[in-house]
């Protein structure tokens, strides 16, 4: 067996051997394994043995698990952040006389950057960690092995529903975050003005805020409001599942894997955000060149 293996190695052409080494080099790295796991998750969607009923039930359960329980902290965070942003932007811009870019600033700060990132952080802390513990516990109890020996693909049964459910929930939560940051933030600002007797000296009405924001919104904003949470949701869930499935049979590895999953999710999210925001940088550059 060994000898034939060696012969197969030698049979490879130099180019084939180069690609083989390159493939093994990439697959040995964590990033390559993450991408491989994602591709296998996508491939598992087209498995021959599929049960639509149980799959959709798992996906809906995961969506609710990710979405519903995070709703209240997310709503509070969004409202408070929205309030802070509205008050600061209004007072600062009013003083400097740039009140016509209030809408643009709100869109840039809340809808483009803050909302996807904070939603992703909250979901990574909440769903990512619990996914890692859940699947990690299954690995320790060799339930994943049992699934595989029953002919049930663990990637399809465990990873695929979490990825799809988690991503759907992240997209919905992102929209809720943006809406409650602007709507809730406006209401809280009004409340502050009412309570303090307009001590901050702000003039704000709903029609002013909404027209400014709708004026500033562009089509790429709507696209990125879907694309960013989509990418972040995939990163969070795939990373959580990867860390969990990577646990060697040792119960002490579960908390380590959990913290690793959350921290590395944060890192990957920020990196992905920078990469996705390159689109805006490039469009700014083009705008500048047309102006000049």
């Amino acid at each position, binding site marked *: *067996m*060994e000898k034939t293996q060696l012969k197969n190695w030698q049979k490879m052409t130099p180019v084939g051997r180069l690609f083989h080494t390159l493939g*093994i080099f990439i*697959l040995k790295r964590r990033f390559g394994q993450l991408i491989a796991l994602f591709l296998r998750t996508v491939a598992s969607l087209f498995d021959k043995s599929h049960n639509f009923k149980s799959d959709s039930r798992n996906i809906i359960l995961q969506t609710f698990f990710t979405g519903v329980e995070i709703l209240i902290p997310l709503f509070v965070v969004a409202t408070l952040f929205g309030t802070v942003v509205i008050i600061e932007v209004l007072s600062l811009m009013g003083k400097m006389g740039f009140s016509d870019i209030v809408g643009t600033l709100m869109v840039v700060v809340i809808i483009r950057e803050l909302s996807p990132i904070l939603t992703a952080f909250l979901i990574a802390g909440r769903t990512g960690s619990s996914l890692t513990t859940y699947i990690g516990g*299954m690995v320790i109890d060799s339930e*994943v*092995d049992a699934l595989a020996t*029953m002919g049930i*693909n663990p990637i399809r049964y465990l990873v695929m529903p979490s990825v799809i459910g988690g991503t759907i929930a992240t997209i919905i939560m992102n929209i809720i975050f943006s809406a409650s940051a602007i709507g809730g933030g406006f209401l809280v600002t009004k409340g502050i003005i009412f309570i303090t007797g307009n001590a901050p000296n702000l003039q704000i009405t709903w029609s002013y805020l909404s027209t400014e924001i709708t004026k500033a919104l562009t089509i790429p904003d709507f696209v990125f409001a879907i694309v960013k949470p989509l990418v972040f949701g995939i990163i969070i869930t795939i990373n959580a599942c990867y860390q969990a499935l990577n646990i060697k049979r040792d119960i002490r590895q579960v908390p380590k894997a959990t913290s690793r999953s959350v921290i590395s999710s944060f890192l990957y999210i920020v990196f992905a955000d920078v990469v996705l925001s390159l689109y805006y940088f490039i469009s700014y550059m083009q705008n500048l060149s047309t102006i000049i």
Partner: protein
Amino acid sequence: MLDEALRLEDVYLSTNELSGTMFSIPRAVSYFENIKASESNKDYQLIAGANLTLKLGETICIGGPSGKGKSAILRLIAGLARPLKGHIYYFGEYIPAERLTALEVAKRQVGFVLQNAALISNLRVVDNIALPLRYHKMGTEDEITKKVNMAMDLMRVRDFAKMFPHELSVGMQKRVAIARSWAMDPKLLLMDEPTAGLDNYNRRNLLPLIDNMRTMFKTSIIIVTHDLMIAKELDCNLVFLHQKKLTEPHSFDYWLRSDSEISKDQFRDLQSVSPNT
């Protein structure tokens, strides 16, 4: 060739495979790493050159001291661990090591009862037994219900059908696990310590069931056990894992009377009793 259920030919297994199956990492990576590691160091080899042939409908028990890789052999056969070298034939069909995964083996109707029952902890007992049947769409919902009820009746777990695994004792979990494997109609069943954690009454109930399975359904069974009396009660051959190899299969009485090192280790107390009885 046609009448054999399983054949191992000169199988080598690395100790690295014991740390669990990495479903997150493509298997090629660990495979090449293991080959490198075991070539440099012989201590990495857990099993070196094991041979085994199992006929259709035959039952075999694997014994031996603990910590020597008995369960690892079952994991190897179930496809959870991958051999470094050697050939494994399932029902006369060779699966190369590159394609030897648990899913591939499970397609050939090989069932595995793990040492800790490994029931899915968020499903009730009924759903646990029905899970593989539903996933593979083996029949309509009525047929599945019928099959699940039959399996539960056989293993006497019908009263606990609506319970969660953590509410059951270890012995009952094991019975549910055996019912789950049985419901899938395996042609080859691997059992890791089926009687550990069972009381004497249930142990005595389990053995006729295993006997029924091999006579009625022509299931080939491999049992890894410390309880060597199973081999006598089921009247099947015993194989020992000795010096990283599997010995020839022989009957319980042969081992009892033989003069080899294994018999001295494993049958000492039985040998001292047997002349009197």
